């Protein structure tokens, strides 16, 4: 699994790729929470997520809750089919702010 961050127009685009499972979700959580503590607007690029489990979803949920509290932007963008399936199973597809593309997420 890989986590890559880049800054675009003052927001941070965090691209996750590979398998976000129990082995790797702690590093995803830490990465996102650090950005939340800095109150940075974040767009998570999920186009290359091949797999995500409950622990990966939990990391996203925690960051989302923190962003809501802070009033900062936290958007899941370009969600891959396997990741979308898991979001639907968790019925969180209606909870998160979603965007079809990273560009759309940045403009939201």
């Amino acid at each position, binding site marked *: 699994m890989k986590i890559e961050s880049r800054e675009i127009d003052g927001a941070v685009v965090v691209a996750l790729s590979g*398998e976000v*499972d*129990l*082995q790797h979700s702690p590093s995803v959580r830490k990465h996102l929470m650090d950005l939340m503590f800095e109150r940075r607007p974040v767009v998570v690029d999920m186009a290359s997520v091949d*797999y995500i*489990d*409950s*622990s990966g*979803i*939990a*990391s996203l*949920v*925690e960051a989302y*809750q923190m962003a809501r509290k802070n009033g900062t932007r936290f958007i899941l963008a370009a969600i891959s089919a*396997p990741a979308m*399936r*898991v979001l639907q*199973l*968790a*019925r*969180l597809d209606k*909870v998160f702010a979603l965007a079809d593309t990273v560009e759309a997420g940045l403009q939201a």
Partner: protein
Amino acid sequence: MRILERPNTLPASLADDLDLIAEMTADFARSLDIEETLRIGIAHISTRMEAEAASIFLMEPETGDLVCRACWGPTDVSGLRLPKGQGIVWRAVNRNATELVKDTSDDPDFSHKVDANTGFITRSILCAPMSVRDERLGAIELFNKKGGGSFDGDDRRVLQALAASAALALINARQATAMAEQQALKRELALAADIQRAMLPPARPPEFPIHGINLAARGVSGDFFDVVELKDGKLAFAIADVSGKGMNAALLMAKTASLFRCLAKRLDGPGAVLAAIDAELAETSSAGMFVTMIAGVLDPATGTVTLANAGHEPPLLCCGAKMDRIDDGMPPLGIVPELFAQGCPETTLQLNGGALYLFTDGLTEAGGTDSMLGADGVAARLTPHRMRPAPDRLRALVGGIVEDGMALKDDLTMVVVEDCRTAPVMNRQYQARPASLAAIRRALTPALERLGCPSQMVPDVVLAVDEACQNIIRHAYGGGEGELIIQVRGDSEMLDIRLIDFAPPINPAMVCPRDLDDIRPGGLGTHFIRSVMDEVEFLAPPPGAGNLLRLAKRMGMGGP
């Protein structure tokens, strides 16, 4: 006058002597070929000590003779052999003391033989033995002080010091050589053990019907097992134990293993294979060595096993709670060729969903005569591991014996032959840790596909099993060390997945899905499991296990 040439606080002669000793000691210490150094050294010593001639004698270990290995002077006596007891050299060696003979005509021990042969006239001798602790290595002998005088007490002390350092150097060199030889032998043994291990069949996936394990008590082994795929889809297998241990047993094992590999594909049935191996071994093997061996053929399609046993431990057939010893058999191979002239009788048996265990006496005799494991002991030790996939089961059983301090006195080999018709399509054991999850998902996907699981269903089931494994890792083991087993079975109706762990039993009532309106992290995994699977239940775990979770799903129903 030398004292004028080299003004020094020490008397000039003593300074020279110390120089010589220091120089020679340094030469000896750094020498790789000590005898070569002695040859060069002797010229140096003779010149500095003003001797007309000198010889170095070394004790020949095989004969106990003193042999001249280096000499300097007008006559060449190298190779001269002095049998025990002759002359001044032997006196020095026997007394382990430096001998100073100022006039040879006064000394009854002086032998004139050498002078008579060489024409050299020996007037005086200084001879220092070389020894370290009680080991006598030889002696350095100087002849005739130049200028007609005799050697004196100072010369004696100098030569004594030189001889002592030469002796140490000799011992060091010998020990270095011995060590190098030992290292070379060790390397060769390790190499032989490597080659032997390479003769064992490769590890196959846990779902393969035949598995084996071999533990050598020393580097090389007198045991072997093999599995050979036959053209008709059947599998030929064998286990054997060569009498004796060590290198000779290993070599006979290599021969027997090659014969089996070659004959199993050509001959019809295990009886014919054993008879042919017997004929070959009886013709060529060395006296007193024999081989106990079982050869067999499994037909995976019917679960039928044909066995032939030549003097080997009876195998155990385990079917449910029942354990039977398959006791038919012949004497060992390689003893009397006529015994197998009529072939070797075969036994046919049905696995009936069970497993056949073959083992060498290294297993039954582990622990020595007082606590010999015996076939019943093997059966008892097998019970707590029966739910494990075959390779892990063999490792657990053998590991348990080694852990219990039952010393491996003999090579230990075990083979299991299973009825794969009733076996799960996936049956794997993993370490219960997050790093195993990726491997679990990768093994699970093809297993589900093999069962005909609809493609849209596969990722959901993989997620559910992953989540159930996470619960075992995080909750059942609580982050501690442990193992988990995943068994996947199924038919066109129902997919049946079982997760077995060895953690303390957990209370199923405590495992509940979270309320979905509450978006706190946690509890989500159990929700995934319950939404994907149709049935989720804890069953009574098999003996030795902690928990057994069954996840089932009707096939062809698609996602929820």
